Every structure is written in structure tokens, then in C-alpha cells.
């Protein structure tokens, strides 16, 4: 019995060592970014690889804010993401309700069509989308960045699946009282769908906030350039050698621009992970 206990203890210790190693490996890059951002250029290249800065400096942060239009890019990103979330709420909730709750020929076809598009990479649509936006002379506007982002079928599909779980009896009662579909949707379905809608909003936020390929194509100036594109222009503007002298600054910029997403994640960690999980399981 004793040896069994010992074996069990050994096993647990092993698991804890593994867990700690994993956490260290995943945290190390983040802590290294943090540490680098507070170091002077001289210290960054002193070859000591110390994790805690010897001379703690805020110079990188000062330079990041004064030398680069981070504020403008951040504003553009927030406006774009805000618009995408706002528009997609309307664009996704209505069709999801219609597909889930109204009987008509073609529901099955539309759902399959929608799901089939989920797996199509958005890069493949870029050529025609670009031609459309260019011919409407909308390049380098918020409109151009936002519009192709509000046809993400996964949001509709998630809501559709959730709406189907709401018992039909609820809407029957409302119908008998003479309520139309719009009333049923706003009075019965929406109040019950808080969790599903927040999942959709988080997913939309993550996808839109990180969206890089499309904004890279259609934004050229600080007027509409979003953060990911702005950061890429900083990075590609350095040649290999000069970049090596600016790492403190680059890490400071990285951290500053992650603040919105990081804050949201820290505040709503559980919801965030739930949203991703649901998209994975249902998708």
C-alpha cells in the first residue's frame, strides 16, 4: 500500500513540475518583452540577459508615444472594431432568428451555404473585394475596412444554434397575444440570449481586432490605418541592422498597443475562453 502511495505522490510531483515548466515556457516571451521595454539600449545588448532591468527607464515608452501615431492607429482600430460589432449585431441576429424560428423552404440550404463559407479563407475573396472597394473609390476609408468584415457566417451560425434551443412555447404565447416576429425577437429571444450574444461579440472583437490582411490592402494613411497594419509598417521600415538597435522601443510599442485586448481578456477571462471554446465545438 505504501509503495502505491509513493508512486501516486511521485506522479503528482511530476505533473506539477511539468505544469510549472509549461507556464514558464509560455510566460517567458511575455516577460522578456516587458523586461526589454524598460531597458536602455545599452543594457539590451550587454550580453547579460538579465530579466530585471539594472537601470529602469521609461524612455522607450516616451519615444513610442511621441514618435509614432499610436493614438491615431488605436483610434482607427477601436472605431473599426466598434462599427463591425455594431453592424454585425444587426446583420447576424436577424438572419439567425429567421433561420431558426420561421418555417420556410430553403432553410436547410441557406444554413449549409453559410456553414460552407466558414472554412473559405478570407484572403481568397480579397481580389474581388478590392476591385469593388476600389471602383467605389472607397480605398483608405473606415467603410472599406469595415464592410467585408460583416459577413462572418460563424457568428450567425452560433446564434442560430442558440436560438434553436429556446423552447417554441415561449413564442407561441406571444403569437397568441398578437405579437409579430419582431416583437417575439426583441421581447423574448434577445433577453434570453445574453450569453450567446456576448460570445458572438467577443469572437467578433478578437477576429476584427487582429484582422491584418484586409486592412493592409485598403488602408494607406494614418487616416484609416488600423493598429496591426501600423505596427507592420514600423517593422518593415527598419532594415535588419537598424532594427537591432530599436528593440526596447519596439517592445514598448507592442505592450502599449496590446492594452485594450489584454484588459478585456483579464477582465473577462472566463467569458473569453468560453467564447473560443463554443466557436470551436459548434463550428
Amino acid at each position: 500500500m505504501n509503495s502505491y502511495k509513493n508512486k501516486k505522490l511521485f506522479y503528482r510531483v511530476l505533473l506539477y513540475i511539468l505544469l510549472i515548466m509549461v507556464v514558464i515556457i509560455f510566460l517567458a516571451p511575455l516577460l522578456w518583452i516587458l523586461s526589454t521595454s524598460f531597458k536602455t539600449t545599452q543594457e539590451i545588448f550587454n550580453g547579460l540577459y538579465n530579466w530585471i532591468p539594472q537601470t529602469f527607464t521609461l524612455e522607450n515608452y516616451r519615444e513610442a508615444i511621441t514618435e509614432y501615431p499610436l493614438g491615431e492607429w488605436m483610434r482607427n482600430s477601436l472605431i473599426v472594431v466598434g462599427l463591425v460589432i455594431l453592424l454585425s449585431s444587426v446583420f447576424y441576429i436577424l438572419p439567425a432568428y429567421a433561420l431558426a424560428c420561421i418555417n420556410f423552404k430553403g432553410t436547410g440550404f441557406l444554413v449549409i451555404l453559410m456553414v460552407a463559407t466558414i472554412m473559405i479563407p478570407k484572403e481568397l475573396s480579397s481580389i474581388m473585394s478590392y476591385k469593388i472597394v476600389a471602383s467605389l473609390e472607397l480605398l483608405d476609408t473606415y467603410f472599406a475596412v469595415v464592410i467585408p468584415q460583416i459577413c462572418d457566417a460563424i457568428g450567425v451560425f452560433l446564434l442560430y444554434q442558440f436560438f434553436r434551443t429556446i423552447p417554441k412555447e415561449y413564442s407561441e404565447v406571444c403569437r397568441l397575444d398578437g405579437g409579430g416576429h419582431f416583437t417575439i425577437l426583441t421581447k423574448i429571444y434577445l433577453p434570453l440570449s445574453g450569453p450567446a450574444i456576448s460570445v458572438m461579440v467577443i469572437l467578433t472583437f478578437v477576429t476584427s481586432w487582429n484582422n491584418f490582411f484586409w486592412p493592409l490592402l485598403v488602408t494607406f494613411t494614418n487616416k484609416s490605418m488600423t493598429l496591426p497594419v501600423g505596427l507592420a509598417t514600423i517593422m518593415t521600415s527598419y532594415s535588419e541592422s537598424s532594427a537591432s538597435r530599436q528593440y526596447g522601443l519596439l517592445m514598448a510599442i507592442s505592450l502599449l498597443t496590446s492594452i485594450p485586448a489584454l484588459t478585456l481578456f483579464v477582465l473577462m477571462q472566463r467569458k473569453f475562453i468560453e467564447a473560443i471554446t463554443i466557436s470551436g465545438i459548434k463550428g
Partner: protein
Amino acid sequence: MTKNSIWNKRRRREIRFLILSLTPFFTMLFIFKILPIFANFYYSLRDIEVQTSGIFVGLKNYRMLVNDPLFYKVLKNTFTYLLYVGPVNIVFGFLLALLLNQKLKGTTFSRAVIFVPYIFMTTLVGIAFRWILDGNSGLLNHYLSYLGIEPVYWLTKSSTAMLGIAIASIWWTIGYNTVIYLAALQGVPREYLEAASIDGANKVKRLFKIIIPCVKNTTFFVVLTTVIYSIQVFGQVYVMTSGGPNYSTLTFVQYLYIKAFREFKLGYAAAIGVVLFLIILAMSIAIFWLFGDHDEFKAKRMKRREKFE
């Protein structure tokens, strides 16, 4: 008013609501998702510019593609990336989920730590890993030197550049798979595991006979998304190496981007897009087949066997 006309009025209202609610989304879906795929086929047969629809050139773009040595490099690079990232993200994503599913203290915190890279922007991951993988003063080389490994010039040598990008990508995305697997593991019925342990099945046996079959649907999803997303890799490459050195990290989407939006050879880029679409379609079908049919096939075989016995 007769009962019938009230019903008719209702139905009319319902149809109006139906049209109003479906049209905006499906119009967008059609214009920006479905039509562009067909448009790529059309464009690929033409010499085309941004403002014009160009002239018909038949299979010229495809002939050029077949004779383009860079295209083969792109194919090789993209699949190399998939080979580096795919298995690690799937297998280790699962193993990490297994670890986090144990009754240990601190698993919630660890889960957050493993997942947090995923919320950073691709460009940031690229910038951060350019620093960590730096040949002369990068953190990774520093720790590798303790193991007696000579400094590796990760991103500036064509033999290791793709591996460097893969390292960054794995750190960035593996948490996604882990979180999804973790949810699936929590759905594995406890009774099965307990019954198996009473029957004397050891941990390895329980893993292969119960846990892995139970999360099969999740594995299907994880494999499908990992493969498709890997084939589309773009942001990391754009920021970390821009396809270099010597085109050793030029990937499919990167090549499409350069041809379409740097050189504005839209017809040629569309041909690349068509090939990419067909590859993704083929791989999706293969994965569906791999995961889907087996079950039915096995069930049929089992039934047949039952009949014989």
C-alpha cells in the same frame, strides 16, 4: 373578416419579415464571400487590372504558374510550415489539455497563460519573436548556448527561417487548440473512466481506449482548422521575414499578396487563389473522409460480424 384572410395577412407579414431579415446578411455573404471565389476562376483566365475587367487570355496565367519556379518554392514552403506547426499544435495542444485537466492547483491560471498569446495581434507576435530569435542577442540562443548549441541565425538563414516562424506561430496559436480540447475532455463521461479503472485498465489504456475516441469530433475540428489556418499563414511571415531570405519563407498567401497588391497582376494572383482554393478544398475533403466515413464503415463491419456470430 374570415379566418383565412387573417392567416393570409399573418403569412404576408411573416414573409416580409423573412425577406427583410435575411437579405442584408446573405447579400453581403454572396458579394464578399461566395461570388469572389467564382470571380477568381473568371479573373484567372484574363489579364486584368484593378479598374478594368481586362481581356480573355485563356489558360495563359496557369501556364505561367506551372513554369514559375517560385510557385513550387511557395508550395514547398507552405507545406513545410504546415508540417512544422500542424503536428505540434494538434498533439501538444491535446497533451497540454490533458495536463490542465488533472486535478492540480493553478490549472485555471495556467490555462490563461497558455491561451493569452492568442489574443495578441499577429504583427506583435512577429515583432516580439524577431527579437527573441535574434541571432546575436536573442533570448532563445542564449538559453540554447547552455545546452551547448551554437548560435542559430534563425530568421536570416534560409534553412532555419521557416522553423523560426513556426516557433512563433506555435507559441501564438497552440492555446486555442488546448482550450478547445480542454472543454472536450471535461465532457468525457466520468463513469466510463471509472468503469475502465475498475476493470483494471491503466492510464495509457484509458487514454487510448476511452479518452481519445471520446474527443474524436473535437480532433476532427482541431485538425481541420489547424490545417486550413496553417496553409493561410501570412501575418507572421510578412512581419518576420517578408518571405526571405532567398524566398525560403514565401508562402501561398504572401505570394498572392505580392502578385495581386504589389505588382497588381490580378489575373495571375487569381490563378494562385484558385490553386489555393482547390488545395484547401481537397484537404478538407480528405479530412472529412478520414474522420467521417470510418465510423459508419466500422459500424457496418461490426454489424456484419454480429450477424455471423
